[in-house]
């Protein structure tokens, strides 16, 4: 049964697009059929992070408006044949995205793929609510920083009220992905700890992505970090997160001090 996953955060610049590319590639590396969909109309970047910017011909709006078939707009990844991209439009206005059109595209994608990963735009406007509308699962990307945590809390509220599932009285499965985390600074009391963020937001932890030059290096060359450097700390963290999404039990042999061993909350 296909699953629709939204990668969202409220705040911009916390790593939604990077995480969409990395989780999408990681799930495909696990053998799943995956499509990543860019909902950021007018400011598309998923194509660039995935290294497919010169292969875009048709986009989501063309498909929604019936100007192109889904198969014409989908771009298959050159490195992973189980991974596809549906790009956003760079020139059209987001008002061209209709509720009915999106519903139709999502149901067509459900027939072709195991995972439909929607990369949400920042903010809480129409683009963001459309991206989460049909979600079964949500990954809330958060930085250990006050403004990001506050915005994530707001987005969690929207996931519990504005989604199709919420309106039917069901629940969207929510997961926290803590990105740009620096355990040394957190231990020194200079940065919110993962325990703090988990306690404040009260949703289960999917993974912690350490602050890493590998993440920037991967987007520089247009490759998800799980493909570009699967053995880097960030690459491994995303691969573990993808396995957890897939329902596999993952135990990470982390290097931990006594303090964090005593106080670590396990990922759900």
């Amino acid at each position, binding site marked *: 049964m296909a699953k629709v996953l939204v990668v969202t955060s409220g705040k911009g610049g916390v790593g939604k697009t990077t995480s969409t590319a990395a989780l999408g590639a990681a799930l495909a590396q696990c053998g799943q059929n995956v499509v990543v969909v860019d909902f950021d109309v007018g400011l598309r970047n998923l194509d660039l992070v995935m290294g497919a910017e010169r292969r875009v011909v048709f986009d989501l709006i063309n498909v929604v408006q019936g100007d192109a078939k889904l198969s014409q707009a989908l771009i298959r990844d050159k490195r992973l044949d189980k991974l596809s991209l549906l790009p956003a439009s760079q020139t059209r206005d987001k008002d061209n995205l209709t509720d009915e059109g999106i519903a139709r595209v999502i149901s067509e994608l459900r027939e072709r793929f195991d995972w439909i990963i929607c990369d949400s735009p920042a903010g809480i406007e129409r683009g963001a609510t459309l991206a989460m509308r049909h979600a079964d699962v949500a990954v809330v990307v958060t930085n250990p920083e006050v403004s990001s945590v506050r915005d994530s*809390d707001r987005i969690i*509220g929207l996931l519990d009220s504005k989604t199709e599932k919420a309106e039917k009285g069901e629940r969207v499965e929510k997961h926290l992905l803590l990105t740009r985390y620096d355990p040394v600074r957190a231990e020194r009391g*200079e940065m*919110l700890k993962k325990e703090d963020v988990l306690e*404040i937001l009260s949703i289960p932890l999917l993974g912690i992505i350490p602050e890493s030059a590998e993440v920037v290096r991967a987007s520089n060359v247009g490759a998800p970090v799980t493909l570009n450097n699967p053995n880097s700390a960030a690459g491994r963290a995303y691969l573990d997160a993808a396995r957890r999404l897939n329902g596999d039990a993952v135990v990470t042999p982390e290097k931990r001090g006594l303090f964090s061993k005593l106080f670590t909350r396990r990922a759900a």
Partner: protein
Amino acid sequence: MSFFNFLNRRTSAPVARERLQILLAHERGIVGGQPDLVATLREEILAVIAKHMAVERDNVQVKMDRGASVSTLEVDIEIPTPDSVVRPAA
């Protein structure tokens, strides 16, 4: 002063945590469609206490923490000590 600053800088995360907890307790009440629950509770608690003893408005603190399975409501009321109450002459 510089030593104090040094200590302060090292422990900014607990400040961030506390500020967020207070702010979000307030915002969740508004966004969740509920009128400000904490403020309403505070007013009603104050009214009940005022029937029986004199308390200052500022000395009643109501705080709510949301957890995964349990939420806690913390009510902190400061009541005047007997010394500050005017005693009848012996």
